[in-house]
């Protein structure tokens, strides 16, 4: 198998604090690889190490064929990077921004012209070259930023929460672009908060407190990491119901989704009747109960709660 990124026991310590703890994973060429985890879980630190911005305390990773420990400059030349914080220069025009970053990435002359046209085309901004970037709406700016980040045709693209703060339609368009790059053979590593975005990924890893706690494609995560059955309960008073259900011995996880409650029961409890009985015993009225396929969110809540329990035990 051909891998774009191979991370081995990647570790970063800041003083006594271990931000990333011996994380290993492999990313195949051309796939979209999702990086999930809560804020402060170590996602950004890992990405920064992979981009050659930060030297690992121990472990190593090979990115695009180069070791981040020994050849961070070569790594930088073969990747593209865009973060949620990254905004283009608002006081430059669209054209000036593209030209500037193109030159920074070492493009010049006819090649730069060609790539400029390409960026304008994929961000739908042909004819607006002289507009000040600061005057563009957020979603379009984000797309332009993505175009600029790949102006040098990197083999690997890192996106650090690229869609935070962008409206759903722009987000959809943004993902169309990411898919397009992936089809063209670019490996994309993306961190995100949005679980529906994680569904677009070929593979996902989940990081918590600096440790890798799950990996696999979304389908596999849903079936393999939950050792039980998922149910959805509709009720008038979900908070109260959650407290009641938490006490039940046959229940692994309970979580609230608006007026609905998702429950993960132990494997032997396969039928909704048993749950319903439990609720009536506790004199609680429920509207409806259905068995469901667990969502990624169920999986993550389950993994995060149990993962953190494990972490405490260690």
């Amino acid at each position, binding site marked *: 198998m051909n891998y774009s990124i191979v991370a081995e026991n990647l570790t970063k310590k*800041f003083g006594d604090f271990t931000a990333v703890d011996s994380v290993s994973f492999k990313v195949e060429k051309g796939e979209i690889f999702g990086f999930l985890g809560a804020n402060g879980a170590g996602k950004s630190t890992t990405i920064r190490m992979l981009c050659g911005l930060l030297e690992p305390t121990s472990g190593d990773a090979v990115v695009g064929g180069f070791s981040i420990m020994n050849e961070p400059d070569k790594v930088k030349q073969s990747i593209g990077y865009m*973060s949620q*914080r990254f905004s283009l220069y608002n006081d430059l025009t669209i054209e000036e921004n593209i030209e500037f970053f193109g030159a920074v990435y070492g493009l010049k002359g006819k090649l730069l012209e060609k790539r400029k046209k390409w960026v304008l085309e994929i961000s739908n901004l042909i004819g607006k070259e002289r507009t000040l970037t600061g005057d563009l709406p957020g979603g379009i700016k984000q797309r332009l930023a993505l175009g600029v980040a790949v102006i040098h045709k990197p083999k690997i693209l890192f996106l650090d929460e690229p869609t935070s703060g962008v409206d759903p339609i722009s987000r959809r368009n943004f993902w169309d672009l990411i898919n397009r790059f992936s089809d063209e053979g670019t490996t994309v590593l993306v961190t995100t908060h949005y679980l529906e975005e994680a569904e677009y990924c070929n593979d996902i890893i989940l990081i918590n407190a600096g440790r890798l706690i799950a990996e696999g494609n979304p389908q596999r995560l849903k079936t393999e990491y939950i050792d039980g059955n998922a149910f959805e309960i509709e009720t008038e008073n979900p908070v109260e119901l959650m407290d009641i259900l938490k006490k039940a011995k046959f229940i692994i996880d309970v979580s609230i989704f608006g007026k609905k409650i998702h429950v993960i029961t132990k494997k032997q409890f396969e039928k909704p009747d048993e749950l319903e009985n439990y609720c009536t015993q506790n004199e609680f009225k429920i509207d409806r109960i259905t068995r469901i396929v667990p969502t990624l969110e169920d999986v993550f809540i389950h993994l995060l709660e149990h993962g953190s329990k494990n972490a405490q035990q260690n």
Partner: protein
Amino acid sequence: MLNRIKAIAVKETRQLLRDVRMMGVIFLFPVFLLVVFGYAINFDVQHIQLSVLDRDNSPESREFINSLLSTDYFDLVTYLKSDREIREFLDRKKAQCIAVIPSNFSNEIYRNEVAKIQFLIDGVDGNTATIIMNYVNAAVASYSNNLNYEFLSSRGIKLSSSVSLEPRFWFNPDLNSTRFLIPGLIGMILIIIAVVTISLSIVREKERGTIEQLNVSSIKIPELLTGKAIPYIVIAFINAGIILAAGYLFFGIEVKGSYLWLLISTLFFLAASIGIGILVSVIADSLQVAFLAGTLISLLPSMLLSGFVFPIESMPYVIRIFSNVTPTKFYIVCLRSILLKGAGIEVFWEQLLYMVIFTVIVVVAASKIYNKKQLKELSS
């Protein structure tokens, strides 16, 4: 590498040209300082407000007063009528000094006795008071010389030539304080412009997050800084040109020495100033902090410790050591040598060396702090 430096420089220039406020600051600020220092702050004592209480009211007393007023140094406010007015005029600053001529002034001259004049000077500003006293002393000496001369020649005695002092002031013949101030002014303006512009331009990238995009590209920090420095160095040179032109037009100051050395020492000075700007940009995380810190760090030491206004030689030892915190100190020596004395490199080569040392120290300090801060930021 050159391609990337050029890209940064072009980008920086474009941003600067769109920033009307910044352009205003860069080009109006030097003019403002020049006017303030050139015209308003003037240590030359002229047109001293003089009042006279003439109790004698004789041709001799009037002649003495006229001898004072015939120069540019004294302007007559009014003749006082009584003792009581003396206090009022000095208290209310209606006059800086008052000459009191006693009623027996002319009589004593005729009797060849020592004629006395009382001279009251407002001593609040000690410096000015001393200068007034010197003027009056000189005026009185010349007046009594004349008296002696007339007295002796009326008796047919020819005065043998006495010793006469003929002082000449080099480099600044009319002891014009503006001429003394202009070099320091150039230094001060250049350092403020350089420090503030470069630190704001770097901190703006930090604040907006664009610096991260540059970090992840293969651009090197020295390339980035060089590219950023180029437009501001050009601007600083334009500024220096404006000040020199204005100094020539308004205050008649010419460049006596070599333009080449002027250019070279200015380049050294700008390198040191940009070093300070980089240091500020490493410490400051917001534009406000950068602007404030940049202005303070560049303005205050170059004003107080550089020898711009106050001579370093007369400072206490500790302060003299402390005066090395600003490269303006070294640059002023170069400028005074080149502009006023027309001297060559043999006079100020050490200053160039000091500026190089200064630049190295600030840049090393900046990179140390930068590394430390990065670790801290990431671990929090």
